């Protein structure tokens, strides 16, 4: 899995491309932690190119969400693909991880 980020006007967009599984989940958490440490606590994780996520990946997103909130911000996810949507729904975590159609919409009204 490859990670990249871009600081926008009101948030930082993290792109996670590949499989978000037990191999890549700790790397995502480390990457987002570094972005938060760099001063961005409003994070959008763009999952447009994340075709697969398991419970380890879900756990990493929850860890990143808590880290962002502890820093005074929030974490939202965008462009969720069908398999990731299925995992979020089956675990009922779609109630916790707010999903938006695009990164631009995630913090569009705050």
């Amino acid at each position, binding site marked *: 899995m490859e990670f990249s980020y871009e600081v926008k006007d009101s948030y930082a967009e993290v792109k996670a491309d590949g*499989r978000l*599984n*037990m*191999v890549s989940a700790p790397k995502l958490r480390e990457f987002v932690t570094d972005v938060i440490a760099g001063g961005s606590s409003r994070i959008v994780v763009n999952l447009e190119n994340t075709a*697969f996520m*398991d*419970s*380890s990946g*879900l*756990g*990493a997103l*929850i*860890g990143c969400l*808590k880290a962002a909130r502890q820093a005074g911000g929030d974490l939202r996810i965008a462009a969720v693909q*069908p*398999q990731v949507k*299925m*995992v979020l729904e*089956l*675990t009922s*975590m779609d*109630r*916790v991880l707010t999903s938006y159609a695009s990164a631009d919409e995630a913090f569009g009204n705050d």
Partner: protein
Amino acid sequence: MTEVLARRTFRGLSTAEAIDSVHNELDKLWEDAPFVQAMDQMTFTTAVVESASNIVQHAHPAAARPVELGVDISVRTTQLQARVSAYHAKPPFGPLEPGTADDDAESGRGLALIEALVTTVTFERQDGTNTWVLTRTSQS
């Protein structure tokens, strides 16, 4: 039991890298069996990877030999089945029933997720090997 229309197997050391290998075998399996509906492919892939990850994370060696991960996936006309095994492993420690995780918990959802994805899950323990048998009744 109807004939096996496609099959893929993996066996190797129970390491994080093995998970990507198992996932690659699943991708190849669906190339061999394109008649399996996309929803069945997606759900079964998720269940198998989740089970294999559970072994890599939690299976402990019974003796000096390291734990090996084995996956045997077969496609029949109306059924997908995976035998996901931990060789040379101690019996599982802790409950085999899925628990409920708090909203802010970062782990503890794997077993519940597997149960939601497949039709049946059974556990076998034989000759130092723990095997999870996942079956999903296919819509094809």
